[in-house]
């Protein structure tokens, strides 16, 4: 499958600086987004360390276990385990930086990272930055927020509507850089023709409803326009926080069996 990828970021309307960071490695189909926190300049430092560390420590073919790293989870592929280990490394780097430098104390970051190998998507995340899958016109969140309100919804103490209106949405139960170790959620799914993926920071999802996000992803002619429109819409709705989105869509250019068997006839179509 071939992917049409675009990203867009903006500091929003209210915040003085953009503390989100993202990185894309096209040759590895690796997409990383992080939302930093910790006031002053530290939030952006933390999120930048996070995305750089994931890009730098993810291996070409998924790596073997290195000493001092957690055991690979047998239910996941090498690529997914590699992604988890690279996020562990990002956590350690932020944590150690904060220990070394008093001014950086308390800084942290969320992370959501996606890697596509063939049609297989490996996903890992910590915090409330999200991954969504748009399939058959239905938008499904692939990540479960590590926030206090999401935890309460999962335990049946709150409805998702109450959670969306809560003033405690910003209270996270997990983030990178808080401790020497962090619990990372991972998942793997198979992608299908016409699927779209969205990685985003909470600056989008707090401002724009999922129905509207789905509509924008469906209607935009390409990823670039979808990404720009999502950010623009979040700003129109108030832009209370930094907004970052990465849109990944099946370009529809992968060759079907017909084109593979009859390349000569199809060469001017594909």
């Amino acid at each position, binding site marked *: 499958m071939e992917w049409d990828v675009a990203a867009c970021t903006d500091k929003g309307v*209210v915040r003085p600086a953009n503390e989100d960071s993202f990185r894309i490695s096209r040759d590895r189909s690796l997409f990383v987004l992080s*939302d930093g*926190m910790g*006031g002053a300049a530290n939030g952006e430092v933390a999120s930048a360390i996070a995305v750089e560390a994931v890009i730098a420590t993810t291996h070409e073919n998924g790596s073997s276990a290195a000493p001092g790293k957690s055991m690979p989870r047998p239910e996941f592929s090498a690529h997914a385990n590699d992604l988890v280990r690279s996020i562990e490394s990002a956590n350690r780097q932020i944590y150690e930086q904060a220990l070394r430098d*008093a001014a950086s*104390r*308390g800084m*942290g970051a969320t992370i959501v990272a996606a890697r596509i190998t063939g049609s*297989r998507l490996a996903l890992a995340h910590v915090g*409330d930055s999200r991954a969504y*899958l748009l*399939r*058959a016109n*239905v938008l*499904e*969140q*692939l*990540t*479960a*927020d590590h926030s*206090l309100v*999401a*935890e*309460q*919804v*999962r*335990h*049946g*103490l709150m*409805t*998702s509507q109450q*959670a969306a209106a809560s*003033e*405690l*949405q*910003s*209270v*996270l*139960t*997990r*983030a990178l850089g*808080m*401790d020497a170790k962090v619990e990372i959620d991972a*998942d*793997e*799914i*198979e992608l*299908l023709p016409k699927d779209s993926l969205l990685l985003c920071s*909470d600056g989008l999802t707090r401002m724009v409803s999922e129905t509207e996000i789905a509509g924008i992803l469906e209607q935009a002619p390409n990823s670039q326009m979808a990404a720009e429109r999502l950010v623009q819409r979040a700003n129109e709705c108030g832009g*209370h*926080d930094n907004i970052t989105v990465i849109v990944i869509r099946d370009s529809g250019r992968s060759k079907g069996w017909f084109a593979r068997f009859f390349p000569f006839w199809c060469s001017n179509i594909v």
Partner: protein
Amino acid sequence: MSLLIVKFEGSVLQKVRVNGAPITIGRGPDNSIAIDNLAVSSRHAQIKSEQGRLVIEDLDSLNGTFVNNQRVKRAALKGGDVVMVGKHSIYVDESDRGEAPVAEAKQSATLTKSVDETFVLDTEERRRLMQQIASTGERSQIAPSRVRVATLVRVQGPIDEAEYPLTGKLTVIGKSEMATVRLNGWFKPKVAAQINRRDDGYYLGRGDKAPTVNGSPISTPTLLKDGDLIEVCGVTLRFAIKE
């Protein structure tokens, strides 16, 4: 030195140390204690030190300032007092000796931390809250307890297993090699239907086929209940919450 502890529904949102400068309370982000709630006026009240005593003054707010449930225009505060502004409470702690960690001291010095700024629970507080949540929320489908697992049970159809525990976020029924419920056969779709674990439960959605739940076809993702019968591509499965 006094410490003001801002709480909302039992959770601590902010701690502010009183160190001479007046502490302003209001909806705007420029307040020392910013409370982003419509019940709070943009400049609601202020707390200052007068001859070594803390005094709170209501700045003609619409919904009032309450000290120990009494509406006040101006009142002296002592340790243990509770100030209510909208639904937020501010506890006055006189026992504080000012030995706060660097991060907290910095926070109170800048006095700009607003309620909607992201922060992370520390390990201890997280453990306490999670235990509290877990002990009150037993009945949920999603609660990650070891004894309750959402499962698809085969009722009929040519599939390999009798039971499929739903462990992942997205469960696929189809011919895909990553499908949980693997369909065999030439014309079976890669994804006939899928089940997504959302925060509030398991939702069945269509793939290339529209599945039925208890005999009725679904158009949008549908929340599954214990005992629901799912039918797709000639396979019938029962959704069960297993103890």
